[in-house]
């Protein structure tokens, strides 16, 4: 599963930040994950718990914020909340293919000591 490779990437980013900012331990890792993204939250939590051992984040809690998906309807000129690909605008029926939110995979912040 690629959640493991993404966890490794997050832990490497945390190491980089530790070097840049001079902290010794991480208490909280906050991620913002779009609802359409390829990350499964449970799988990511599982991978993080397995890989964080013996790292600077070994005691860190993982906090996953879900970013709701949205698409822009060019006919109605407004943004529409969506749950998946393939939805239509509730007002005009136009296919909502211009996705403007929901694919984010962001390491948002760290709480550190």
């Amino acid at each position: 599963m690629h959640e493991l490779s993404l966890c490794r990437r997050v832990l490497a980013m945390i190491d980089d930040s530790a070097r840049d900012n001079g902290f010794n331990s991480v208490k909280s890792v906050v991620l913002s994950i779009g609802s359409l993204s390829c990350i499964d939250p449970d799988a990511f939590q599982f991978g993080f718990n397995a890989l964080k051992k013996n790292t600077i984040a070994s005691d860190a809690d993982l906090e996953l914020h879900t970013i709701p998906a949205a698409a822009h309807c060019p006919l109605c000129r407004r943004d529409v909340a969506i749950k998946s690909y393939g939805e239509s605008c509730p007002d005009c029926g136009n296919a909502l293919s211009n996705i403007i939110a929901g694919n984010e995979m962001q390491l948002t912040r760290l709480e550190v000591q």
Partner: protein
Amino acid sequence: MCGSCGCSDMDFTINGDARHLPRNTHTIVLEKNILEDNALFSARNQVRFKNAGVIALNLVSSPGSGKTTLLTRTINDLKTEISASVIEGDQQTQNDARRIRETGAQAVQINTGKGCHLDAQMIDKAADVIDLCNIDLLFIENVGNLVCPAAFDLGEAHKILILSVTEGEDKPLKYPDIFHASDVLILNKIDLLPYVDFNMQQCIEYARKINPSIKVLPLSAKTGEGLTAWYDWLNLSLIKLKSDCLTEESI
């Protein structure tokens, strides 16, 4: 109230359980894309391919859709007009690269081991051994997987999705991410239509529901039916690339 010590000094919740941070903690705001590395390599690859006058195409599909057969047929049929090289991605073996090399084209095999998709850094490394300035097309045959390759851009000009008619017409609804990310849908193995319950019209409708602008090309890499439209699309893409380069030079 904090779930650990009972105080009311709450900073955040995890799974509904209020927590407060230990004293002497401070916040580092990063707001960094987890796939930033892949995005950087992808952008770099894109520039590199454009500067070399090469169109890179990322072929994605389930295993067994006929990607390699389509590639060998395409390379052989267009041998006198278009020069191509191939980057092959599989978990193990050199089998597909060997098949491509039998056409006379260069093939670089990447074995991902446990990995389920190619990434942009792998392509960057593979491209180092390809003479990009002397080819027109770089085909990248991704690991057979309809899920993960959708999220990992490689620096390609287009994702080409290959679905065979033996796979079921509702695949666009089941795997929307990859259908949304692809510019072209090749419906392969149409010679088998008389023997399978595949509703082509329904499949195309589903695909266009997910991606209204996706171009659909039904064909058979085995019999050759429908290949002309695929070759026309390739030639048009090359003409467009050359025209874009000329426009930039004249500015």
